[in-house]
């Protein structure tokens, strides 16, 4: 009897403290949500985005915050579980009343939260390259659209320096991003005169760990004709077994180069990169890019990782493209809030257009006045033996995003700005 009473009392005390403390904090801070998988198959990529977001928020707070108020991050873990993303997004918006959410990596998670953000007219900043074919008023896309990553990468593979590839293996994880990207790439390759028999498409489930057959198939396909290249849209921790198998089976970059769109410095951390030298990745940022802004960004991250003793990064700090995109996204949002003098989503959306930010990638990134995407430079890097990338090709300057790919015929005539559906609301 006594024990039960004690339990009840404890519960009541907990509930009370929760109720009392929340409103007290909300008065003098602005809450922002961080929605990244901290467990499950995507944790390999997303965990560090949570940390870099916290670092950026600390940085902004150290300079006095936004509108004179400190930012207060609310971190949730949707655990690589797509429906859970929507649930957690609802919680952030309805319960925590956050001013904006920074999060998502896979397109399937973004598609899952999209209705939540549109319905409650909230703001999502999405920091990862994706397949395009989407333009929501409530989302700012700070990663690359296909014309800022996939298309230039394939063009490079077809160039003399990229190995004049004539046959392509489109390899990906089985979900919306790889399927759509490969649809666009297939249409693009057709436009370059490459026939269907010279294109092989392969998909594996999330978390797939046995790449023996796939590598065997690539070898066979490569032996059946001219120079072959692989375009990989494999996402998450499957990349580790994929690259291990690639190295063990001795498929060298000089024979069959693999260009990846979701593999950066962080994903290669646990992999022996010596057999992988020369395989490629296309991004809008690499850690190895040399300029003062990037040096400062890397230093800030290294110090932060050491101070917070972030696993892995405290000994070997690494930065990558989605980290840069997260960093840009949060800063631009803060600038827009200052400009709008309000955190009201509609006012912030209006203030976002044309925002600029000096990005660690070495260029000033501009938010397009209309299409909610950044103008970004494109880099192609080859993996070096130390797990870093050697930039072998880059665009002369930032490129405007085309969310609606011109290579998909149905996109003809679609507007390059979010369509606000009046009938729906």
């Amino acid at each position: 009897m006594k024990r039960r009473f004690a339990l009840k009392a404890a519960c009541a005390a907990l509930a009370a403290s929760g109720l009392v403390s929340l409103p007290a904090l909300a008065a003098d801070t602005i809450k922002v949500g961080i929605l990244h998988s901290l467990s499950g198959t995507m944790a390999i990529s997303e965990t560090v985005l949570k940390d870099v977001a916290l670092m950026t928020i600390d940085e902004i707070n150290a300079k006095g915050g936004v509108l004179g108020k400190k930012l207060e991050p609310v971190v949730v873990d949707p655990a690589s579980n797509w429906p859970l993303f929507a649930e957690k997004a609802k919680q952030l918006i309805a319960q925590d009343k956050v001013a904006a959410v920074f999060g998502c990596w896979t397109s399937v998670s973004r598609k899952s939260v999209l209705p939540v953000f549109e319905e409650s007219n909230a703001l999502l900043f999405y920091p990862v390259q994706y397949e395009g074919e989407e333009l929501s008023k409530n989302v700012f896309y700070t990663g690359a659209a296909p014309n800022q990553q996939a298309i230039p990468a394939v063009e490079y593979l077809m160039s003399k320096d990229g190995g004049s590839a004539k046959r392509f293996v489109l390899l990906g994880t089985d979900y919306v991003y790889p399927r759509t990207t490969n649809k666009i790439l297939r249409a693009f390759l057709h436009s370059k005169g490459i026939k269907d028999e010279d294109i092989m498409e392969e998909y594996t489930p999330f978390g797939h760990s046995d790449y023996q057959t796939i590598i065997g198939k690539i070898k066979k396909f490569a032996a059946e004709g001219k120079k072959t290249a692989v375009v990989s849209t494999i996402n998450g921790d499957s990349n580790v077994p994929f690259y291990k198998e690639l190295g063990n089976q001795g498929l060298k970059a000089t024979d069959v180069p693999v260009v990846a769109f979701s593999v950066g410095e962080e994903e290669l951390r646990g992999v022996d990169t010596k057999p992988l030298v020369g395989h490629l990745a296309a991004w809008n940022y690499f850690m190895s890019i040399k300029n003062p802004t990037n040096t400062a960004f890397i230093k800030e991250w290294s110090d932060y990782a050491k101070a917070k003793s972030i696993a892995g990064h405290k000994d070997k700090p690494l930065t990558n493209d989605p980290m840069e995109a997260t960093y840009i996204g949060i800063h631009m949002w803060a600038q827009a809030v200052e400009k709008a003098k309000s955190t009201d989503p509609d006012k912030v959306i209006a203030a976002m257009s044309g925002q600029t930010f000096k990005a660690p990638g070495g260029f000033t990134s501009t938010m397009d006045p209309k299409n909610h995407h950044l103008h970004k430079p494109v880099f192609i890097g080859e993996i070096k033996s130390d797990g870093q990338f050697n930039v072998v090709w880059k665009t002369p300057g930032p490129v405007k995003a085309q969310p609606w790919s011109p290579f998909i015929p149905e996109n003809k005539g679609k507007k390059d700005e979010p369509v606000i559906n009046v009938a729906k609301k």
Partner: protein
Amino acid sequence: MIRHLLRVVAAVLVLVAASAHALTPEQALAMAAGDNDSRIAALNAAAASGDPRVAALVQALLDGNVKVAGEKAFIVADDGKAVDAASGAPATVPDGADDVSNNNRMRSALEAALAGLRLISSDVGVRGAAIAELAKSSLEESQLPLIEKAFAAETDDVLKARLERMRATLLISSSDRSKRLAAAAELAHSNQSAVASLLQERLAADAESDAEVRAALQQALSSVRARLAWGERLAVVFTGISLGSVLLLVALGLAITYGLMGVINMAHGELMMIGAYTTYIVQNIFRSYLPGAFDAYMLAAIPAAFIVSALVGAVLERGVIRFLYGRPLETLLATWGISLVLQQTVRSTFGAQNVPVENPSWLSGGVEVMSNLVLPFNRIAIIAFAFVVLGGVALLIARTRFGLFIRGVTQNRRMASCVGVDTAKVDMLAFSFGAGIAGLGGVALSQIGNVGPDLGQSYIVDSFLVVVLGGVGQLAGTVVAGLGLGVLNKLLEGVAGAVLAKIAVLVFIVIFIQRKPSGLFAMKGRSAEA
């Protein structure tokens, strides 16, 4: 464009002036700086001279040890000592020297040039390795003189024949029709996939116009393809056995705890995960305290994982499962709960992210059996390991006193107890033994996949499938089912892709279990009811 042309011309001029002489500083610079076209031209011209300094420079370029400052190229060794690339004399690198970086195109040109230089080595072994290296790459027209030279000088019959074949890959596009015919006939003996794609390319509509040569090419292509097909078939069998041996390893522990003892242990996957995390810890201990013996960490990880998992198994059996014997539904729920507890414990201790387990160097890489069949060492090791563990389990069950007790207790508990067997102790030992085997499975999994708190989840279904399909209580059934499912999965994956193959295998198992509910190897006689 003009500047680019000028550079090429300059490079070539420099080379012509210096050819057949020692490497000049201008030559060294032309190989290290400029655009790829001029660098490759400079490289191939310098390589033709056969100067040993060229080989040293090419090797250094490949290793990324070359710096350029002003008008000079330097080779910087790992210890920081620098030499002048052309003369080989010690030198100091000026500040602000740029690293020379190579892209894939440059690297393959460098590799081919290096192999070319080694073709004229006096050591037969070096020459053989160089030929093997060159056979895999696609050669450039400009390398023909070098190969002709090596061919003329070659004394070893086997190598001479291989050089002739290599020469044929270049002569196949010669302007002389008879040379092309001879080359096609020669290439028919090849077993290289590079040759297959070369022949395919020559057969394209715009490449070869002569009908007779086309026929010869076609014939050569089909005989090369036939040889390569064997490599592909063997690869399917190997990958199937490899996947099968993984399935066997993960199911073997379950074959004891579920198959023999009848405990539906949903925490079996977590016992594997514990084995994998033990490997991770042992690896970290070796890295911190015995970095010199890092490659041997696996030898310590195997017994450690067995013991840790077996201990956890013993605690589980004594703490929970022994109260639930004969109540399968409660066991299922209780062990499932335990699996969640174990996962969360690991997540809280090691973090939710995967932990990196590095392969020891002797498990990286592979052995090339045929040009399109490379057997990775880690896969070979896991197949061998699976069979060693299997042999150990089979011996223990069939030949030892402990095995006799396990069989006795599982077949007739009351009778075993009557004749003086301590059945509770046997239960505990048998369960821990099964758990220990699961831990060994975890060691193997850590070498091929990701180690994270969810590791067990992805294998628990597979391991139950294998045990049920093989026939509960039958070790032989587990072996056949594990290997069979592995090969079947890989055969289907080759045809239908990974996603569909997984579905097809599950459908197959559903149908099979409906037809034969007691599995492949059904127990015969009255004991089956027990």
